[in-house]
């Protein structure tokens, strides 16, 4: 009897967890499918005739299409760059012994905690001087401040799990250090590289502050575009929520792929 009761409580609890985590997402998606009169209904309606008008509207809006393209270009480039720069460093941290190694390690991961506003001010002034404002390049580079640490951190872990016997055997065969990295560590490290790439992509895709400050019209990213509808007397809620859905849906799918690694990616080593 009490067993049964406990099971019911457990079930209800889990359903509540689902309701809690999914509700805002659910509300965004349903709102994107409501017409304007349903959107402005008071009290809000839960059952309505869905419409795809808002999606039609945003897919015909060149501003939104191009902002999604800019976000794609920036997030992909910064992720690739972070891996090209970060994976060799991770290999060095995983397999070499040298002075100051732990300090270097801390310096890498402590970048995660720095508030973007600290760097946004000087980078704005520097980019202005160099003529880099409103370019893809400035965002691709500045996003490395959080992507590089995450690639280094996750890949170091991954490379450490590769048996060092493989490396020793290759060295006996006369392989150079670079060849060992290229032929052994990179192929065997693919899972870690993939996970860190997905994290880099998600963080870059989601970023607002740097994008807001460092770009204007030419390189407006998707979150900035979504934010830009928030002016005027009557807000186009359907359009805003449809844009929100288009931005959030792909990264949610990515995140589900790495859900098992989510804690690691976000804590950078607090729990293991």
């Amino acid at each position, binding site marked *: 009897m009490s067993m049964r009761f406990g099971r019911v409580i*457990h079930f209800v*609890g*889990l359903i509540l*967890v*689902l309701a809690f*985590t*999914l509700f*805002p*997402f659910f*509300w965004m998606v349903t709102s994107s499918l409501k017409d304007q009169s349903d959107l402005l209904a*008071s*009290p*809000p309606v839960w059952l309505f005739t869905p419409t795809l008008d808002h999606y039609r509207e945003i897919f015909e809006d060149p501003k939104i299409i191009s902002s999604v393209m800019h976000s794609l270009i920036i997030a992909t480039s910064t992720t690739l760059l972070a891996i090209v*720069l970060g994976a060799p*460093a991770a*290999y060095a941290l*995983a397999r*070499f*012994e*040298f002075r100051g190694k*732990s300090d*270097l390690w801390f310096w*890498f991961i402590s*970048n995660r*905690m*720095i508030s*973007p*506003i*600290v*760097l*946004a001010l*000087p980078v704005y*002034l520097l980019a202005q001087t160099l003529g880099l404002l409103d370019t893809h390049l400035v965002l691709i*580079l500045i996003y*490395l*401040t959080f992507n*590089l640490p995450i690639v280094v951190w996750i890949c170091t872990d991954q490379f*450490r799990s590769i048996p*060092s016997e493989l490396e020793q055997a290759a060295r006996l065969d006369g392989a150079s250090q670079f060849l060992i*990295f290229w032929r052994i560590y990179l192929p065997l490290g693919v899972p870690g590289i993939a996970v860190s790439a997905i994290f880099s992509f*998600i963080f870059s895709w*989601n970023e*607002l502050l740097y994008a807001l400050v460092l770009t204007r019209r030419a390189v407006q990213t998707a*979150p900035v575009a979504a934010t830009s509808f*928030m002016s005027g007397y009557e807000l186009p*809620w359907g359009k*805003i*929520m449809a844009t*929100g859905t288009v*931005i*959030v849906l792909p*990264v*949610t799918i990515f995140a*589900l792929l790495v859900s098992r690694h989510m*804690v690691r990616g*976000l*804590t950078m080593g*607090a*729990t*293991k």
Partner: protein
Amino acid sequence: MSAASPTPSKPAGRLNPGYGRWTPALFLAPAVLALLVIGIYPTIFALVTSFRRYNITRPRDGFPFIGIENYQKVLSDQTFWDTLGLTFRFFLTVMPFQIFLGIVIALLLHKPGLGLVRTLARVSLVVPLATTYAVVGLIGRLVFNGNFGVANQMLGWFGIPGFDWLATTNGAFAAIAIMDIWQWTPFCALIFLAGLSMVPVEVEEAARLETSSKVALLRHVQLPYLLPGLTAVLILRSADVLKLFDMIFTMTRGGPGTATELISIYIQRVGFRVFDMGTASAQAILLLILTIMLSRLYIRVFYREIQ
């Protein structure tokens, strides 16, 4: 166990390293140089700017060095202290909810049985964490709308009259806190869940046989495994709250008045809406010092055992 040493490995080949002295440097150089250029150089530039009068709307005045005047101005600026205080209050508001709900969710997910629903619930935790922070703010603005917001409808179900959340000081503060609790409770739950899974199975099963009291089980068996996660949550979340910008910017822009103006929002306003870069840089440097202290604390707590 918590404690996550980043160097669990035995040093590979300490006696005969088998690589040249400069090999590590070659592999490290690209990443280190990149971080020096994009991280350290701008920080130094901000430090220099913080000692100048630097208003970019008045370039004709030049940007003269004025010593520590900006710092004196910031430290005697009541709004700066108010926003720091508000940031701290925000942290104290959201943390109890995130810790309590996080532990409850972790316990629900840890308890055996109900495989499918449990898996679905665990996977669903990823959704808030992946949602673009700026979009979270946009959703919040719709949900907490005074006329057609679903928050007021839900209050109505419990017979509580609705109000215009984002137009009142306390309402707006509560609204951003609720959205933050929604987004970051799953993070806490995942950390606590990782802690619970560290409890040795035999110990937990033996304890379940000894006592039927869930509270006793939690207190004597599971709690010790939750504590390291708790420290991690407190330190990481405090760093996050100092960074918090996107969600508040899209939801309230710090308003009404300065009701939701946390530290990052305030510095952004001084730098990019007032264009007083000198003062904003001084504020940013002070924020950086606070963050460095936090990250030192974090490292001290979690990486103690390494050399």
